[in-house]
């Protein structure tokens, strides 16, 4: 379905050069059953001369059989595909159409307006840059108009055209057009803002579809086709941070190892620093190779093969990201789901989750709320029905390296697949890491516990112990020297006559936290309980030395808030992974390599180093005594030790 070639004015080489250089725009059409979607698409195909004579003849034959337009060839029949649909006169699935003009090539996802087919709309919307929402001028903004608008917004389609159709049936009334436009704008103002256009038209009669129309002298804007030919496309996906899920490793011989994948976001150049997520291992891009030779730059949505400078282990499911703008890593995520199956979704159900090229078992832990797409109200529910949209918390067996969907679609989307029947049950838009709200349940602290006055005042404690209370968090990779440093520090403080107690991950897990494992959630809870303990210790006037990996920056922030910013000191034991691995005092890394242990910070998921620690200790270079001295100096500087 492409524009005709006119041999009298054009050479074929010129024509091909133009065709080969066109850009691609994918758009979705939606609206109620009778709003005229199929007619619009049929009209576009017809008026851009994309219909062949035999196809038109077939449609004329079909029009006599099924047509609804009297004597006219019913152009809608061009796009209604399967026989059962033709007989029912409605489209019941997503159909893809293709046409091109002199300027662009278009892929149209044609989706049904029938209300139980939210899933088809979500499907069509997922790959589109633009939504075209048809509104019947006689009926104005309907429940379905709103619903479809909300779905396209949730699915993150960045631009929308509201085509107010059947203007011929309201005598091209400007008032009608303006009032529908105002209604729509009022409604859409509750949604995240996006580029929005309005165009009046009659798809049946062809007015303002391709060319301007004398029937609407009051309308000075572009026709529908002019709009879709001029809307900006493609740039946004290259503005965001570089992301490429690894699809496969290409290793034809010992000299070449490339990570094949499709760039989902941003651009990459040789020499760029990148990280392999979720492990967080860093390297540099050495080559961007393709069948046609190496590239100096590659941007979304190109498929390439990336060769790194270092011999780094990465495999399908990992994501190569910009080192300066890494993504979030978590095995507990919050997402909005479009539920696509007749069976009701209930909490606790297990699925296979696909995100990027990662496939992992997962469990829907909790259904937070359902979104009513008609009223935009959110209400708590204990299940989701077919075509409902709701927010859920998901726990994955393998941590995901993701971005919020509204920032990067390619690394913010997921599907849930039934473990037995393999049906695609849900589409998900990741909103973020699941916030652990236990952290916020901070008990009352300080002088007035349980309404009882403190028997010993802070000033009295300070005077007795010669110190102000504080919590020193020693954070760093396993093997970075945290535990032995904590012991030396306690000894040093004791020798100085001060009072400190020591908490570390291993001992906490032996008792108080023996119910916890090593998932991101459990690590967070391990730290939370330990920090609650630290807080109690501090309230008694003592110094707490806490040695924990604490790999997640946001969790350390919460620890600081819990203990109190003014008495929380973050000390980063910054020995690099290679050093920790080679030392491997506890045999953890060796065991991980042989037994395939998971959830090791810096190996399976990223350790997020503090941006601005109170103290940075290169523990791989310093003698332990020197590290202790630096911490003591810090305590003195901060007025904790007098």
């Amino acid at each position, binding site marked *: *379905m492409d524009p005709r070639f006119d041999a009298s004015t054009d050479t074929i080489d010129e024509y*091909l050069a133009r065709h*080969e250089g066109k850009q691609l725009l994918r758009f979705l059409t939606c609206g109620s059953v009778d709003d005229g979607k199929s007619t619009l698409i049929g009209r576009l195909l017809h008026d851009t001369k994309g219909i062949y004579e035999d196809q038109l003849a077939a449609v004329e034959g079909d029009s006599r059989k099924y047509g609804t337009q009297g004597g006219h060839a019913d152009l809608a029949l061009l796009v209604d595909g*399967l026989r059962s649909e033709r007989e029912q006169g409605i489209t019941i699935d997503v*159909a893809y159409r293709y046409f091109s003009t002199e300027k662009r090539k278009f892929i149209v996802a044609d989706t049904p307006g029938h209300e139980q087919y939210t899933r088809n709309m*979500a499907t069509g919307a*997922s790959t589109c840059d633009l939504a075209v929402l048809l509104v019947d001028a006689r009926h104005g903004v309907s429940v379905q108009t709103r619903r479809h608008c909300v779905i396209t917004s949730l699915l993150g389609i960045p631009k929308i055209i509201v085509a107010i159709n059947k203007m011929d049936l309201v005598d091209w009334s400007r008032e009608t057009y303006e009032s529908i436009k105002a209604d729509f704008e009022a409604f859409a103002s509750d949604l995240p803002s996006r580029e929005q256009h309005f165009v009046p038209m009659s798809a049946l009669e062809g007015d303002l579809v391709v060319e301007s129309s004398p029937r609407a002298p009051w309308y000075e804007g572009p026709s529908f086709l002019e709009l879709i030919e001029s809307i900006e496309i493609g740039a946004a996906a*290259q503005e965001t941070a570089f992301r490429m899920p690894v699809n496969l490793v*290409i290793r034809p011989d010992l000299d070449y190892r*490339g990570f094949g994948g499709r760039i989902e976001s941003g651009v990459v150049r040789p020499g760029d620093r990148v990280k392999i997520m979720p492990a967080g291992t860093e390297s540099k891009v050495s080559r961007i190779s393709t069948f046609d030779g190496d590239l100096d730059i590659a941007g979304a949505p190109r498929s390439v093969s990336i060769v790194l400078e270092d011999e780094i282990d990465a495999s399908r499911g990992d994501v190569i990201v910009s080192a300066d703008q890494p993504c979030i890593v978590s095995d507990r995520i919050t997402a909005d789901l479009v539920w696509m199956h007749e069976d009701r979704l209930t909490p606790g159900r297990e699925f296979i989750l696909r995100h990027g090229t990662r496939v992992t078992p997962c469990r829907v832990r909790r259904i937070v709320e359902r979104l009513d797409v008609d009223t935009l109200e959110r209400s708590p529910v204990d299940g989701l029905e077919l075509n409902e949209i709701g927010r859920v918390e998901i726990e994955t067996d393998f941590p995901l390296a993701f971005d919020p969907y509204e920032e990067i679609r390619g690394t913010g989307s997921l599907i849930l697949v039934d473990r037995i029947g393999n049906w695609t049950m849900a589409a998900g838009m990741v909103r973020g890491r699941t916030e652990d709200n236990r952290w916020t349940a901070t008990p009352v602290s300080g002088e007035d516990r349980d309404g009882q006055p403190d028997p010993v005042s802070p000033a009295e404690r300070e005077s007795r112990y010669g110190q102000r209370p504080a919590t020193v968090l020693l954070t760093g990779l396993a093997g970075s020297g945290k535990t032995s440093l904590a012991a030396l520090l306690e000894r040093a403080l004791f020798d100085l006559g001060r009072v400190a107690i020591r908490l570390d991950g291993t001992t906490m897990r032996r008792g108080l936290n023996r119910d916890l494992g090593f998932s991101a959630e459990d690590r967070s809870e391990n730290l939370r309980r330990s920090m609650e303990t630290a807080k109690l210790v501090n309230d008694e006037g003592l110094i707490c030395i806490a040695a924990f990996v604490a790999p997640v920056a946001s969790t350390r922030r919460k620890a600081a808030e819990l203990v109190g910013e003014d008495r929380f000191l973050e000390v980063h034991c910054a020995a690099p992974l290679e050093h920790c691995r080679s030392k491997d005092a506890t045999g953890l890394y060796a065991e991980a390599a042989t037994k395939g242990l998971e959830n090791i910070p810096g190996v399976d998921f990223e350790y997020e180093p503090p941006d601005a620690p109170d103290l940075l200790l290169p523990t791989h270079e310093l003698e332990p005594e020197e590290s202790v001295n630096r911490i003591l100096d810090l305590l003195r500087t901060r007025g904790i030790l007098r």
Partner: protein
Amino acid sequence: MSAIKDQLSHLQALEAESIDIIREVASSFQRPVMMYSIGKDSSVMLHLARKAFAPGKIPFPLLHIDTTWKFREMIAFRDRTAEELGLDLVVHSNQEGIDQGMSPFVHGSRVYTDVMKTQALKQALTAGRYDCAIGGARRDEEKSRSKERVFSFRDRNHRWDPKNQRPELWNLWNTRIGPGESVRAFPISNWTELDVWSYIHLEKIPVVPLYLSAPRPVVERDGVLIMVDDDRIPMEPGEQPEMRSVRFRTLGCYPLTGAVESEAATLADVIAEMLIARTSERQGRVIDHDGDGSMEDKKKEGYF
């Protein structure tokens, strides 16, 4: 205003999508195979597969279903291509059909196609225990294909159920199947006929010379020009093959493939003619005209 840093043309965008799908097949399935029909769409797919795994080799075999009635030039092209590119080519014919002397002239296109194509394909897929067959179907070819999935699910009998296809979102392909089930993957779903030709032109991909016009012996039957490719075509009384300058818009079994009269002897000429043409490419295929929705019925039975 944001600026594009690496501007992709629509052909580059389509190519990137197709490469990603082909890689997905190689990563997700145990025993994938690429259908190779020798036509222009197959030539494009083969080219894309080479790109997907470069500098490595294509990690799966190519399967050709030989009905034994293909144009001779097609077979020569197939063998030359396999030789030059070092492909792992598997050729299968339905021996039962050959033994029964199956012929489109004797048994009619419907029965012949079912036995020599549909049944032969099922035999080959079963024998090879292939869990994914990559095909060159495009959504713009025919109405029933416009809703086809990129990863199209087939039951244990290789059947396609239009009501039992999984939703496909983003490029998060659901490639999971149960024992005995399979998937047909269509990496060039979103390409149009012009895209295919433009890409062949741009990338200088070799195609069977039958696509270009040359004097060829033909007979006219029911308004369709049939090439006399060998002596198995029975002549009607008084019928004489005549040399005409013809080419083919699609390639299949010679008795079922209509030629068009044309002087277009170069690829550019063919594309120019196509752009002026007023009939769609499938019109040359006898198979689509057996009845309304006939392609849909054939697909349900397991035809590609």
